[in-house]
């Protein structure tokens, strides 16, 4: 083990160095943001950083002027003179009492890091602002050796780094892989066989573009984007704490889907959520959007102290706001100044003060142990989409009724009925209503019982500047506008954070790896210039989300194969350079949607109350106040998309949970990717997937008489969009043979298997034969290839 350990270690170090060189290319100049800040942050900031209470010797290394100041004859950093710099002599000291970082901190600088720091000081100790807060510069794309490969400027930036590393981009993915990729990425569903066929036949250079444009127009696009957004804002159908009762939030989910479909600008989308109620004459959607401020976890437990929970809610909102829009990790500033980033405790409470006008008193007084619970203020509303539909039908009705020629009684009746139903279908939704703001104080060490802290007014974090000053107390609307203000606000940060996340949806990883931390501890992006340009492009386009996605998806880089090569593996094992695409398991909701779509069970209906798929009996037995029983929907809702599943925070549907969907108690910017036995058990045994296999097999059986091999090929094609190889068909035929043998011996077992799920099949059925094919389809639905995006 010892030898193995050291061999591998040496090997890995080699890789690190090679990668480092590869990535930094020929540039020998030390870059503060890339090479120095992370080292200082990791090793020095906890004692010499922003947190005043932990600071040793009064020295700060996170601020240039203080790090370079002469302090009683010694200076930590003397530009150009490592020999005179206390910092350099201390990190190189042989004296255990002198050396920094001190041994008891458990931290130690590597020889490379020491060398880097000295070199940086020697080169002048140039400081720069944290990369995420620097003004982005729109740069001309660099020229590359390969002039053919790039399709747009995104490619040129990527190719430039790839070439510098002595690598080449991967070849284009085969077309079946590509169309599956783009379907899953843009709408979260597999391509129907006809779409695959058209795409394979279309040899024009615009073939992909046509598909992408069509997908961006699909209503399923909004559903796919919502899956991600709802993780960020921690949308759920239940309150989260204690009794975890249902609350009224589903109209907000529909608003999000619709907003992405309408391509609402990201700025407007944000403003409506944070402050729709403060807009002049807000429309229905703008009020529904303010449900954002109410999505946090709340408690309806007997004996909660209002004062304590107001503090908890307040902190929750600050954490979520900063995580969603600033990529900031402000949570720790609730009790002490941030250890690595210049966020202070005062910043934390000043941000909280923006949300102090949200009416909370009603719900704290009127908590109810009922399903749903009451979380006032709630209002019954039609969405703007529904209102438009009502108008449309009304107009159609008028036309029908006024048609002098017509005898449209039947149609008139039908329309009237639809209209009546829709008019009745207003749903309650929690909204934000502003009241006189509560007084917000800094809570010393986060202690809500302590009233000695300073009273604070709404203000943005001090180091990020100021929201434009007006002659009044700032509001949520000012905060929202500040996010998109290119002059006095943080538009560049907002843009970088969002663009990076969108990128990760289409490449599997962000340009900056830490989607949730744009602070000193977050990794410096390998492509800062590209991130800058994308951020500026996004801003200049008027925060046009679809245009951003189109740009990314139509890059050549997006179309690359995701397959590893030995060269890439050796030189860029983490795919920092994006010299290949990524291959990863589909998100939980898509695992479901995919199986339903393949089988033909999928019901593509938009919006509405949340749906309840089959779930193991007794799964909610630990819930109480009130006790509840889960009743799966027995109608078409059973087969709707995953984005609509009832999101029970305390007991998330076990299928979603097994595939790493978050409980949405806090912001999730990147889901985990696991392969647990529990997820295997779901795909093998969850009735939803067994039913999908049953209906898929039934569908295949209806096709004209054909031999096993042909039918097998069709099933395989249906699931993977490609033809099976001979060996694959053989393996599956073996499964078929085994199943036939078993079910022939015990036909009752076949009958039992065919009972799974509510979906009906009609007509003459050979149970043994059908059950045998169900067994084959179960294998197909369990394959990695079926459940991965490549």
């Amino acid at each position, binding site marked *: 083990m010892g030898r*193995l350990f050291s061999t*591998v*270690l040496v090997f890995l170090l080699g890789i690190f160095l090679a990668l480092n060189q590869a990535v930094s290319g020929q540039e020998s100049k030390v870059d503060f943001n890339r090479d120095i800040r992370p080292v200082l942050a990791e090793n020095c900031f906890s004692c010499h950083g922003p947190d005043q209470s932990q600071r040793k010797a009064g020295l700060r290394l996170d601020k240039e002027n203080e790090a370079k100041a002469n302090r009683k004859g010694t200076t930590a950093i003397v530009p150009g003179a490592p020999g005179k710099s206390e910092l350099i002599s201390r990190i190189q000291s042989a004296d255990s009492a002198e050396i920094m970082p001190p041994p008891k901190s458990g931290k130690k600088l590597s020889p490379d890091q020491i060398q880097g720091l000295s070199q940086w000081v020697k080169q002048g100790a140039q400081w720069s602002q944290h990369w995420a807060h620097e003004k982005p510069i729109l740069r001309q794309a660099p020229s590359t050796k390969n002039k053919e490969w790039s399709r747009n400027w995104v490619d040129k930036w990527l190719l430039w780094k790839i070439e510098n590393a002595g690598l080449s981009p991967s070849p284009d993915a085969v077309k079946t892989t590509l169309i599956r990729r783009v379907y899953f990425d843009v709408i979260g569903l597999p391509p129907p066989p006809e779409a695959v066929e058209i795409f394979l036949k279309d040899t024009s250079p615009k073939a992909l573009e046509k598909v992408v444009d069509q997908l961006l127009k699909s209503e399923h696009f909004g559903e796919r984007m919502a899956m991600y957004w709802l993780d960020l804002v921690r949308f759920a159908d239940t309150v*989260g704490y204690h*009794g975890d009762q249902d609350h009224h939030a589903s109209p907000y989910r529909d608003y999000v889907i619709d907003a992405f479909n309408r391509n609402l600008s990201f700025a407007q989308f944000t403003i409506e959520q944070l402050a729709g109620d403060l807009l002049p004459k807000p429309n229905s959607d703008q009020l529904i959007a303010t449900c954002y401020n109410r999505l946090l976890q709340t408690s309806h*437990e007997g*004996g*909660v102290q209002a004062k*304590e929970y107001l503090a*908890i809610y307040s902190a929750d909102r600050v954490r979520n706001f900063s995580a969603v829009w600033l990529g900031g*990790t402000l*949570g720790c500033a609730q009790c002490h100044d941030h250890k690595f*980033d210049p966020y202070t405790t005062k910043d934390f409470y000043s941000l909280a003060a923006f949300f102090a006008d949200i009416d909370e008193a009603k719900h704290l007084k009127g908590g109810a142990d009922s399903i749903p619970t009451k979380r006032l203020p709630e209002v019954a509303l039609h969405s703007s989409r529904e209102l438009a539909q009502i108008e449309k039908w009304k107009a159609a009705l008028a036309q029908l009724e006024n048609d002098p020629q017509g005898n449209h009684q039947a149609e008139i009746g039908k329309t009237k009925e639809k209209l009546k139903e829709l008019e009745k279908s207003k749903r309650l939704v929690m909204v934000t209503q502003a009241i006189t703001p509560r007084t917000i104080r800094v809570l010393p060490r986060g202690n809500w019982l302590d009233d000695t802290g300073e009273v604070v007014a709404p203000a943005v974090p001090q180091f990020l500047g100021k929201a434009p000053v007006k002659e009044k107390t700032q509001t949520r609307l000012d905060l929202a506008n500040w996010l998109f203000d290119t002059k006095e606000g943080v538009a560049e940060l907002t843009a970088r954070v969002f663009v990076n996340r969108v990128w990760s949806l289409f490449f599997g*990883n962000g340009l900056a790896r*830490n989607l949730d*931390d744009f602070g000193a*501890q977050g990794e410096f992006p390998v492509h800062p210039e590209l991130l800058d340009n994308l951020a500026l492009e996004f801003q200049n386009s008027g925060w046009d989300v679809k245009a951003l996605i189109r740009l990314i998806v139509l890059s050549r880089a997006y179309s690359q194969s*995701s397959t590893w090569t030995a060269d890439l*593996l*050796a030189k860029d*094992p*983490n795919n920092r350079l994006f010299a290949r695409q990524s*291959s990863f*398991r589909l998100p939980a909701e898509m695992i479901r949607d995919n199986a339903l779509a393949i089988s033909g069970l999928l019901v593509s209906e938009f919006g509405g109350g949340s749906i309840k798929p089959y779930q*193991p*009996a007794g799964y909610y037995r*630990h819930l*109480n106040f009130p006790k509840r029983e889960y009743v799966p929907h027995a109608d078409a809702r059973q087969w709707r998309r995953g984005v609509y599943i009832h999101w029970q925070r305390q*007991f998330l549907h*076990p299928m979603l*949970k097994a595939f790493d969907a978050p*409980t949405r108690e*806090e912001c999730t910017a*990147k889901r*985990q990717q*696991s*392969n*647990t*036995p*529990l*997820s*295997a*058990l779901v795909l*093998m*045994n*969850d009735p939803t997937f*067994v039913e999908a296999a049953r209906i898929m097999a039934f569908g295949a059986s209806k096709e004209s008489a054909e031999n096993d091999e042909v039918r097998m090929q069709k099933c395989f094609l249906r699931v993977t969009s490609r033809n099976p190889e001979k*060996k694959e068909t053989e393996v*599956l035929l073996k499964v078929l043979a*085994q199943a036939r043998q*078993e079910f022939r011996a015990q036909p009752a*077992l*076949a009958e039992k*298997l065919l*009972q799974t799920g509510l979906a009906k099949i009609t007509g003459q059925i050979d149970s043994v034969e059908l059950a045998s094919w169900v067994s084959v389809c*179960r294998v197909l639905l369990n*394959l*990695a*290839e079926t459940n*991965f995006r490549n």
Partner: protein
Amino acid sequence: MNRSLARRTFLNQSGLGLGSVALGEFLQGQANAQSGKSPPQKGLPGFPNYPARAKRVIYLYMSGGPSQFETFDYKPKMKEMDGKPMPESFTKGQPIAQLQGQALKVQGHLAGFKQYGKSGQWVSEFLPWTAKMADEICVIRSMVTEQINHDPAHTFMNTGTGISGRPSMGSWVTYGLGNETENLPGFVVLTSVGGRNPQPISSRQWDAGFLPPKFQGVEFNSTGEPASYVANPPGVSPNLQKGLVDAVRVLDAKRNEQVKNPDIESRLAAYELAFRMQTAVPELMDISKEPQKVLEMYGAKPADGSFASNCLLAVRLAERGVRFIQLYHRGWDHHGDLVRYMGICSDLTDRPAFALIQDLKRRGLLDDTLVIWGGEFGRTPMFQGKGGPGRDHHIKAFSMWMAGAGIKSGVSHGETDELGYHASKDVVHVRDMHATMLHLLGVDHTRLAVKYQGLNLRLTGVEPARVVKEILT
């Protein structure tokens, strides 16, 4: 080497960054690959940090908050003060739950106390079986916590913070130390009810938080289906299911020759473990073959879903190498009618806990199993009357006990003030309990850390935490 690099990269992409921990996991994978074995959950290299006293933990979680004044904390002064106003010097400025705005009166003990065993530990008459093992347990009477409502208090007890989304202690332990069985998860949760209207308990309490999801607690049920989705679909024989697993493995492996995705390798392993679990879990959960004598010792009946059955199952899990076993009994929230509900809870749990300790001893497991008993907080010395006399939530003092590996037996640790309001001597914070538990498992609590959102996070957090050396042998 390609394969190993791919594995490493996969780890990096798992969101845990490049820390020593990910590197370690990779190296472990290397070692396993060389030896040709693939244990499902090995621990981190370097862990345990020093020789472990305990190999596993059985945590008897008395959910709802049992009263220390009717279990272990005997306060003669309370009797004198019974019914009199609680002096404000104790309560002023302190957090309070359901008694907000009410007159605070002292509630004397609602049960008799006696000293037991050679050690002379004080135990109430509610716990006659625990009294019998007074010389085998260590009672901590000076526990304190920070959260006064059930939900956040559970979260605090299990994760060290009231904020949702952090890993639970069982996840931390299995993450650091791995698992000793190839057929079962490393962290198993069992629940039972009985007592006052049971408080809810969220799956957050056994979640892995930002640790890899394979370290989350898995809930087994002693009644009904033994675990979610563990049964084959109706009509599918074990043989046919095996056919499915084999076909998936062959097809995935074949495809992976082309796509070379390391994720698919771990997926293959997951299918194997899933299939083994389908046999192992029902076998484990079926206690009907245990000798009648053993069942009687616990008071367990097969498939009755009782705490007694769960205690027996805990021993069976321990025997099979499961690292962290947590048993919740929900029913200890006694705001009113305390005597009646305390009676029910004690009847359901007292004897099984005793049997558990004896059975562990009998099977030679007590020496390396740490047993912990306790709730998320305690109860007030003040009266609350929802129905008959009861007590409200209390966080400034409560009692727990520990036994087994490395724990001194027949010892009481810590004291409370004369009315039992504040822990006054040798105060043990929840964090100290966590540090002590990890210490017994051979883990330095400051070293079991994971970088998440720029911070080095650990079970014991950033505030000071100390190993309670005084209770260790």
